[in-house]
């Protein structure tokens, strides 16, 4: 440790800011260095002198009064704590309410838009399918163009048509073999080909 750092450590020791290991090193240096011991003794003497010579005057009564008056002026201008506290709470509640309202509005808008989109999709799909089912190629193309959301809609529509066609044929077969309960008397002329009974047998 050199004298320069030793003197800085003396100052830190005087203010209680020197750690324990620094104190030990300082003591070792002081044991060996007469100049630093002299500096330390002088430092203590100077501090005592300055403490003794400290001014003991106080600020005047007028100065104190003016400071207190200034303080009162500022506190009088300031809104009371209860008011500011209430105002803060009200502001917080209002802000919270606005956030909730904004959230609800946003949700409503999103829901409406999503609903419209879904509805549009359904209508578009339905239009395409119906046009396909009706075998109106131009309408189907238009519907598919407008509702180009479902690329394989035509394939689906064709499949539906095919299923419908098969179902129609099957139904026709069933109608010939199994008469319905509400079946009306058929036009005998149309059945003449069978010719099993004469028309005027009765």
């Amino acid at each position: 440790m050199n004298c320069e750092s030793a003197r800085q450590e003396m100052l830190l020791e005087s203010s209680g800011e020197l750690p324990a290991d620094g104190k030990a090193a300082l003591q070792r240096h002081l044991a060996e260095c007469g100049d630093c011991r002299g500096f330390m003794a002088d430092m203590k003497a100077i501090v005592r002198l300055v403490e003794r010579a400290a001014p003991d005057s106080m600020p005047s009564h007028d100065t104190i009064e003016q400071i207190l008056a200034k303080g009162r002026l500022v506190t009088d201008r300031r809104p009371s704590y209860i008011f500011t506290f209430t105002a803060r709470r009200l502001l917080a509640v209002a802000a919270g309410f606005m956030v909730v309202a904004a959230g609800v509005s946003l949700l409503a808008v999103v829901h409406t838009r999503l609903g419209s989109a879904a509805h549009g999709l359904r209508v578009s799909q339905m239009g395409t399918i119906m046009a396909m089912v009706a075998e109106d190629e131009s309408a189907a193309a238009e519907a598919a163009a407008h509702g180009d959301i479902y690329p394989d809609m035509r394939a689906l529509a064709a499949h539906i048509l095919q299923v419908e066609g098969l179902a129609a044929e099957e139904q026709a077969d069933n109608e010939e073999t199994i008469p319905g309960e509400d079946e009306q008397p058929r036009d005998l002329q149309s059945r003449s080909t069978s010719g099993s009974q004469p028309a005027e047998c009765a």
Partner: protein
Amino acid sequence: MEDAIAGESDKFLVEQHRRGDATALEKLLSRHGPGLFRFIMSLARQNDEAEEMFQEVWFRAINGMDKYKDERFLSWLMRIAHNLSIDRWRRTRANVVSLDDMDEETGLSMASMLISAGPDPFGHVATLDIEAQVAAALDALPLEQREVFLMRVYENMSFKEIAGIQGVSVNTVLARMQYGLSKLRLMLRDVFSKTKGTEDEL
């Protein structure tokens, strides 16, 4: 009563003041007023100037109470006082020659020129009584060194705290203290020998 005041922290009193409690400022003033005034008085020396500066520090503190954060209140006041004294020092700098100022012709500091000028460069100090000699010696220190010395000796502030007030590193504060002590040691050597003699006799 003193215990009750001591039980209320500075932070609590500042908060009370912010809430409009006029007595909080009175308590802060009675707690920190004497120390602050002693510090300012040692900087200003003239009583009317010290009163004016003391009042200005408190006015600034009252106006800026919302900016006060969790620190020692006296340190905060000292920082305001430090800034004020820097402002004042800048205004009056043209009329003041510091011991650290360099002479343009010789390139020597004013302190070294004074020392080389004769056997008793601080003769005017030696002619005064002890208190006045100490005050004159302190006045001869550059402002930053004087502030460090006064805050350390009068208010028992740590070097770390002083560094925070001056806005510099602890090492810079230690260097200022060390230079200040060296100059005081030189200027007050006669007082030293007298008081040392008296102490030895005792």
